[in-house]
């Protein structure tokens, strides 16, 4: 590669599109780093930290998929709520000195790796090889369109999800409280 083509490529990097591509690659790296940390860290608290990092990266990926609303919800719900809940459970239920380290058995590490590798290979090959049909867009998928469809076409599901969340909160309270007085 001679210096002039390198210069033109560096010039392509420092445009709006080039920087967007660079930030996208950083987001992928953040996501995968966090995911690996979440699944291999020795301590559960670090594992939750990895989960948070991974979810922030996933929120960035959602932003690149024309969905800023879902990206914001990802940060609010996962980074804000789910991770804090998991942290609470670790504080309540998993004192570090009692937790045995390492994988669940001598074979579970390699076997899990093989299973995960095969799954990844299969899914990735399927995704790359298939010629996905592209259909014409009906609308732009804006936040306003999401709100309108949530309250018209999907209003029943919307209400059902709120009932599910209510029952989940009540069930969690009952499960965690039972046997507490004894």
């Amino acid at each position: 590669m001679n210096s002039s083509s390198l210069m033109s490529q560096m010039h392509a990097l420092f445009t709006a599109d080039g920087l967007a591509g660079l930030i996208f690659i950083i987001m992928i790296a953040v996501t995968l780093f966090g995911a690996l940390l979440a699944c291999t860290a020795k301590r559960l608290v670090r594992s939750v930290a990895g989960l948070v990092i991974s979810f922030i990266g996933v929120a960035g990926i959602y932003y690149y998929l024309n969905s800023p609303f879902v990206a914001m919800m990802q940060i609010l719900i996962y980074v804000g709520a789910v991770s804090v809940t998991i942290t609470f459970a670790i504080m309540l239920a998993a004192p570090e000195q009692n937790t045995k380290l390492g994988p669940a058995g001598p074979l579970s590490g390699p076997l899990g790796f093989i299973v995960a590798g095969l799954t990844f290979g299969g899914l990735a090959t399927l995704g790359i090889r298939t010629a996905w049909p592209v259909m014409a867009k009906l609308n732009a998928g804006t936040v306003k369109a999401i709100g309108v469809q949530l309250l018209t076409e999907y209003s029943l599901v919307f209400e059902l999800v709120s009932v599910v969340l209510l029952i989940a909160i009540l069930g969690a309270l009952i499960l965690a409280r039972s046997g507490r007085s004894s």
Partner: protein
Amino acid sequence: MLMSVLTLHNHLTTYLVIGALLFAIGLYGLVSRRTIIGMLIAAELMLAGASVNFMAFNRFTAPDPVVGQIFTLFIMAIAAAEAAIGLSIVVAIYRNYKSVDTEDLVKLKG
């Protein structure tokens, strides 16, 4: 070469591979973790991988780009409910067994 790397975010396959990777990492964690909380964390990663897949198809192939976003929002709500229930079960298990290690929870074994 650099140009093709910088335009990765305009291709459906990039997102499909990321989703598959997240799913596979979550699967590895689910199989190899020894505490229930670790398995729950891995399950959250698998859900994130599935959501990325939905959002990718929503952006690139689906005719109505609202449906996939709403589906992902519902996945988030169900995952939050799942985390709340699962973690309260973990707390209840810890109260009865004084452990969250899967090897200590074999009382239900036939």
